[in-house]
């Protein structure tokens, strides 16, 4: 019996320790990954595309060194693009035909520039047309023998002195290249290749930036390749493998399977491209460890694709600043009153109940209140009590002039809402701090002839200040982290930097929510997602650790150690 009791006692102790351990583990499991992954927003391996983007979009970096780097990178990429170009010749008939027509026009221009007569040029071009048509026919056919015959026909003109040394010489280079292609590529499978080729081109553009010869893309996010090495790796994966979905054994779920793209292009010149990319990707992108502290101050670009979180940081700081400017004085005065007041007074009891209720109001209800009160009524003005009739006599409406703001969300409205939210936090912490000051301090100062106000301001307040400061810091962190109260009162997802407190703003908390739930952009920039939440967490953690340290120091000091 007694052994059982001791065993159960031991078990109880272990379970209890387990509960605390769980909590500490939860803290680590929750914060660890977010902070670790978040730090990749600031420290990461930036590629040459990153440095190009920084120079072009943020005017940061050394243009001279970038130019040298770009030259080296272009040289490294050249064989790859050459292979791509060579392969495309065989496939993309339309593109090739367009090129052939372009050369034909350019030839005329060149001859005109040389000062030849119209009739001569026309005669030259009649012959050249035969070359062009033969080449075009070769491009168009899907039969290899026929294509070779057309190529031979075109080749008959090789060495003609009217064409050699001019732009038309290009035709014969193309004839050679295409002869190569016809021998290696199965022309009948052209359509199949073309589909794959488009995917390859897309993946290449994501990896290395726009392909040479392509028109510059309109969206900034398409104007650069993988700016970060951690983005380059999935892009490389997409380039090397095609994802296929196939039903699993149970027939319900689809399972993804990676198929090497190389297989599709086996035996063609393009098969070599995959080897080249895999081997030389580092020299093509030149990744280098990069420290990017401007992440915290740079404005966002291209809907969070580039840039930092400067707007969000600024918005959060402004919101908490407005909030604290209002809540701090109100809170300290209330706390001073409560600390001095007699407990059994009815007013004090009502006051305490109200403060407790205020602390228990759900944050989303603060949001509703902020919308109905600050945004729609207090700041713009309006009717407090609508017109009503009692016993046939009309009363009201009772109007409030307001401050002339529009009925839209603003930093001011958000800050005021947050101030109401943190008021109980400040009051409780400050009251505790004031009560912790020994009664003798007050008695001594009153005995020396100080009034109650003077005793409070010059003696009690300084002694209680560390504790009050702790409360202020804690409410600051609370205000910075809240999302629900500012949803309808102060924030937007993307917009200009606010010029004054009467405008809405971006904020870290809301921004983290948006970037975590937005399906279009979020998954493309995980470093940004985690970077934003990391910034918010670090802000709150630093404030809280500061508050804890301050409080333990204050407690030691008041104990006289």
């Amino acid at each position, binding site marked *: 019996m007694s052994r059982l009791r001791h065993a159960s006692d031991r078990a109880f102790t272990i379970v209890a320790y387990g509960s605390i351990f769980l909590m500490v583990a939860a803290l680590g499991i929750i914060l660890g990954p977010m902070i670790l992954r978040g730090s990749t927003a600031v420290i990461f391996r930036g590629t040459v595309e990153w440095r190009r983007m920084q120079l072009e979009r943020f005017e940061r970096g050394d243009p001279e060194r970038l130019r040298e780097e770009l030259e080296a990178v272009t040289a490294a990429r050249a064989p790859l693009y050459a292979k791509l170009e060579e392969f495309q010749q065989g496939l993309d008939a339309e593109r090739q035909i367009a090129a052939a027509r372009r050369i034909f026009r350019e030839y005329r221009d060149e001859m005109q520039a040389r000062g030849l007569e119209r009739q001569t040029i026309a005669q030259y071009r009649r012959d050249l047309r035969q070359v062009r048509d033969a080449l075009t026919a070769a491009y168009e056919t899907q039969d290899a023998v026929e294509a070779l015959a057309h190529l031979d026909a075109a080749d008959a003109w090789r060495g003609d002195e009217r064409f050699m040394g001019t732009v038309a010489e290009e035709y014969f280079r193309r004839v050679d290249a295409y002869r190569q292609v016809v021998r290696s590529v199965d022309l009948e499978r052209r359509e199949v290749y073309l589909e794959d080729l488009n995917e390859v081109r897309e993946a290449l553009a994501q990896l290395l930036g726009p392909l040479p010869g392509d028109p510059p893309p309109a969206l900034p996010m398409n104007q650069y390749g993988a700016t970060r090495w951690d983005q380059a790796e999935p892009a490389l994966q997409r380039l090397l493998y095609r994802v296929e979905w196939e039903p699993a054994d149970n027939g319900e779920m689809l399972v993804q399977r990676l198929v090497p793209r190389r297989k599709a292009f086996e035996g063609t010149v393009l098969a070599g491209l995959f080897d080249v990319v895999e081997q030389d990707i580092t020299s093509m992108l030149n990744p280098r460890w990069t420290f990017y502290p401007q992440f915290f101050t740079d404005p966002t670009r291209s809907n969070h694709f580039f840039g930092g979180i400067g707007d969000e940081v600024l918005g959060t700081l402004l919101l908490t600043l407005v909030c604290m400017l209002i809540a701090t004085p109100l809170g300290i005065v209330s706390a001073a009153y409560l600390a001095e007041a007699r407990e059994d007074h009815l007013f004090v009891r009502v006051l305490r109940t*109200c403060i407790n209720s205020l602390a228990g109001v759900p944050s989303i209800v603060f949001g509703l209140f902020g919308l109905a009160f600050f945004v729609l009524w207090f700041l713009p003005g309006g009717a407090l009590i609508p017109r009503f009739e009692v016993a046939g006599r009309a009363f009201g409406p009772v109007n409030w002039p307001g401050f002339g703001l529009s009925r839209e969300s603003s930093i001011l409205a958000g800050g005021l809402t947050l101030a109401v939210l943190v008021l109980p936090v400040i009051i409780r912490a400050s009251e505790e701090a004031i009560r912790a000051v020994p009664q003798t301090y007050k008695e001594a100062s009153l005995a020396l002839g100080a009034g109650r106000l003077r005793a409070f301001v010059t003696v009690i307040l300084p002694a209680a200040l560390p504790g009050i400061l702790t409360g202020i810091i804690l409410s600051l962190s609370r205000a910075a982290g809240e*999302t629900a109260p500012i949803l309808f009162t102060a924030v937007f997802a993307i917009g200009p930097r606010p010029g004054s407190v009467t405008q809405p703003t971006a904020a870290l908390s809301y921004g983290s929510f948006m970037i975590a739930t937005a399906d279009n952009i979020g998954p493309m920039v995980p470093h940004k997602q985690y970077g934003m939440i990391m910034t918010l967490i670090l802000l709150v953690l630093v404030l809280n650790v500061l508050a804890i340290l301050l409080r333990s120091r204050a407690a030691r000091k008041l104990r006289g150690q």
Partner: protein
Amino acid sequence: MGRRMTQLNDHPAASIARASRALTLTPGQDLAGYILSLAGRMVVLTITSTSILSILLIFYFVIRESLPFLSEWGAGELIVGREWYPTARPASFGGLPLIVGSLYVTGIAILIAGPLGILAAALLSDIVSFRVRQWAKPIIELLAAIPSVAYGFFAILLVAPWLQETLGMDSGRNALNAGVMLAIMALPTIVSISEDSLTAVGRELREASYGLGATRAETVLKVVIPAGRGGIIAAVILGIMRAIGETMVVWMAAGNAAAIPSPWYDLSSSVRTMTATIAAEMGETPRHTDHYYALFAIGALLLGFTFVLNMVSDYFLGRSRRTGRAKVGK
């Protein structure tokens, strides 16, 4: 000699002796001082009343904005209606799925956080040394300080994929995910308030129990926790309030399907809470429409709910404080 004289004249006592001010106040000065201190008190009182004013304004404005809905549709629809289709034509504003959703995730959270929190509180108050306690309390405080959006972020980007891939759930955004997150968020509240009330139980009871030969587990479970039950009940109620009023985590993690889980024990079903509904829909709702008023009515319901819970927890806290004080006093 001359130097000594100057020093003597500079002495504060000397200047007081030379002072021409009368030692008694004139009636005018007396009155001015009285009025000044009265005015000061009025100012302090006015500022202090901000809290009272705030809570009154919150009630007034939230209820005022929900009245148009209540007068047109009635409170019954909001509480027992099963269809929440606010943008359909004709719209229906049945709030039951939302209320059930809120209670569902809160229930999961409290079933996890309640026992765990009370155990942890007992550990902190009765088992570990002062040093460990000094370390553990700030860590629990940090858990409380992490912004709710961070918990939500963790829930959808790390927990949800894990639930989906490892446990094979259809969607990782479900009641279980949100409930576990809410449990972690409610834990600090439950632990710190329970711990306060367990510590307040006092040495005498513990020593008496040990003196009778009880083990530590028996002392904690049969003596300390029953003695501190008022505070523990208050702590659990405050934990419930924290969970039911939480917005961001449930909005992000609970899946947002306005349906009652069926079968009821299916934790992997998607639910939608009252808070998440307000947060998700208010932004896109034109002002002063039925939908807008309905969302305010949900807010009023939530406000009333937490207000009552708060009163109950205040009652239990007050009772536990009184009994604690009585025990120490006598």
